[in-house]
């Protein structure tokens, strides 16, 4: 074995060791990342999954005309003022006779959610013949009751309910008069002080309108800016200056955009606060740099030979852009835009500043109705003292994450799909 070979052997061994070590580092860091993700997901899903269900209590309710103060169940006006609370209280007293003390009565009444009246009204509206009769009906339980029923047997003694109340709930459960149902209102309701009535409906709709406004503004503006800068703008100090500033803009903390929105859109232009239109405008400012930068990158990847070919056939500059550059760059532009939109969807800070942090009960009907958005709703709930909101916060986070993952997947799929033509 010659001297060189020996040396090479030795250095080879070292090189392989180095390579192995390097790979190990890589795997380790990916492992750490995945672990963090796993912990995050287990925590959120563990906390949040229970919020997708809620409990109902069955009571025998007599829809007495006198107590309700209704003589015609098909008259909406009357139904709106009917004393459903009265019949529910009566039903509860009947179910648990012998509760005479006022204090105790109040505790008894607290078993049923204040939203149960609406349950009842809807039932009656759907079937006016119920009036005057007696029926077994399922009513939405109060959030404390719900929480109690969701806690495993062992931990129940710690619950924040009176002993008497616990007894009543146990009784109802034993009699099969409690039921766990899918919490559809979580998706359809707006915010509420009562956790069992609160939902992310208005936040989702608010997010939707905000995103629509953002998309409709930032995509065309961003793409147009990118095309102009990339294809038409002369190369000089001024365009260099613009380019540097677009890159700077991408790095500006988002809360600054909120301040800008406050100063310009609200104070200067007098736009109403708390509306998706305003949120969309602010988020447009925020996503524009991302879209411009990714779109320019996409345009740069269009081979110059294709442009030359089209020019040599007599295409004008505009035609080269429309016929060749845009179609080829579109997948990249779309991907960039979707990722920008996903960022915007998760954005909270700038929206807090423009008043989208309001307590919104109604589902907004358009981009000019007051609304809140998902991440802000999460922020609001995370701040709430009621224990039930803990689960709801996590549930809302799950929904938000689901949206984000869907959007990012869409971006990847779209890119794969459209790139095949290339």
């Amino acid at each position, binding site marked *: 074995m010659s001297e060189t070979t020996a040396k090479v052997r030795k250095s080879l061994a070292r090189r392989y060791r180095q390579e192995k070590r390097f790979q190990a580092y890589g795997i380790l860091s990916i492992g750490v990342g995945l672990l963090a993700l796993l912990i995050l997901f287990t925590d959120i899903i563990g906390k949040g999954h229970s919020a997708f269900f809620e409990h109902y209590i069955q009571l025998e309710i007599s829809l007495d005309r006198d107590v309700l103060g209704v003589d015609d169940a098909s008259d909406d006006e009357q139904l709106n003022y009917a004393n459903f609370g009265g019949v529910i209280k009566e039903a509860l007293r009947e179910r648990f006779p012998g509760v005479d003390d006022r204090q105790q009565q109040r505790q008894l009444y607290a078993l049923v959610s204040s939203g149960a009246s609406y349950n009842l009204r809807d039932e009656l509206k759907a079937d006016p013949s119920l009036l005057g009769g007696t029926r077994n009906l399922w009513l939405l339980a109060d959030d404390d009751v719900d929480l109690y029923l969701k806690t495993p047997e062992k931990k129940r003694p710690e619950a924040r309910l009176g002993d008497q109340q616990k007894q009543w709930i146990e009784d109802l459960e034993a009699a099969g008069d409690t039921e766990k149902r899918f919490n559809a209102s979580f998706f359809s309701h707006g915010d509420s002080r009562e956790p069992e009535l609160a939902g992310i409906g208005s936040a989702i709709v608010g997010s939707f309108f905000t995103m629509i406004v953002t998309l409709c503004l930032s995509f065309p503006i961003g793409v147009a800016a990118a095309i102009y800068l*990339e*294809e*038409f*703008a*002369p*190369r000089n100090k001024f365009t260099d200056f613009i380019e540097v500033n677009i890159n700077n803009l991408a790095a500006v903390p988002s809360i600054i955009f909120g301040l800008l929105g406050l100063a310009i859109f609200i104070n200067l232009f007098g736009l109403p606060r708390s509306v998706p239109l305003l949120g969309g405008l602010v988020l447009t400012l925020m996503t524009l740099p991302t879209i411009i930068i990714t779109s320019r990158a996409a345009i740069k990847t269009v*081979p*110059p*030979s*294709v*442009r*030359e*070919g*089209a*020019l*040599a*056939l*007599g*295409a*004008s500059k505009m*035609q080269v852009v429309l*016929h*060749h550059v845009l179609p*080829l760059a579109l997948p990249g532009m779309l991907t960039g835009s979707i990722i920008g939109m996903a960022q915007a969807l998760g954005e909270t800070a700038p929206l807090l500043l423009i008043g989208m942090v309001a307590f919104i009960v109604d589902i907004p009907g358009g981009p000019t109705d007051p609304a809140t958005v998902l991440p802000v709703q999460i922020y609001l709930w995370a701040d709430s003292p009621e224990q039930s909101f803990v689960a709801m916060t996590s549930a809302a986070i799950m929904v938000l994450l689901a949206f984000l993952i869907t959007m990012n997947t869409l971006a990847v799929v779209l890119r794969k799909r459209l790139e095949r*033509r*290339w």
Partner: protein
Amino acid sequence: MDTARELDNRNRADDDAAKPLIDVEERSMQDTPYPEKTVGKPFVDAPKMKLRHVNVFYADNQAIHDVSLDIGKNEVISLIGPSGCGKSTFLRSLNRMNDTIDICRVKGELHLDDQDLYDPKLDVVELRARVGMVFQKPNPFPKSIYDNVAYGPRLHGLADKKYDLDEIVENSLRSAGLWNEVKDRLHSSGTGLSGGQQQRLCIARTIAVSPEVVLMDEPCSALDPIATAKIEELIDELSESYTIAIVTHSMQQAARVSHRTAYFHLGRLIEVNDTETVFTKPEHELTEAYITGRFG
């Protein structure tokens, strides 16, 4: 503008790679004086393109020095010369592709028939429909074969009906000798063809707008000998209906396809003669040095 700069950066990178090392021979040749005037027969009767005192500058750097040349009707003229001598630059000024390069300026009188090419009133779209160009690297659009060929006619509104367009596409592909190979897959992608087929597709695309002059910048340099032979055959056939100017590095190719040959040296047009004369009895020393392979 960014794109243009990038375009020519890339072009130049290509050229650099092709540039052979200067050898001893060339240095000695550099002492050979340039002729006062282009030697040989640069002018013909009733030319298709009449080019006089053409000077081309890249910023302050002059790439073409006072070139005067005629291109006859239905003739194939080949432009040869060492790398970097300005063949591409000269060719690109004939259909104003140099316009896409910011720093490039063209001076002189350039006429296509009676039309001044650099007349400010002239629309370059119209000019490029009359003077087509085929590039060194095949550059089909990432569209179907049909759309590649139909692109030019559509652009200029040459066909009113689908039927007419079909006919133009078929005829162009036939003239380019590609029809039989692609007639069953007209709607599959043009980028899926082989290199030689792609180049013929580009030729079909160029002749689909019925240009009067076709410029070719080293159209075979990316192709194997068989594909090259096909293209050369094609050039021969095309010369019946088109005027062709072709830049080539292959002297055999110039000898095979062209009627006249123009020899460029460092931005100057040294000699233009019938192809046979150039390759058998070159008049100028520089030409002789080049074709005998002493440099270039």
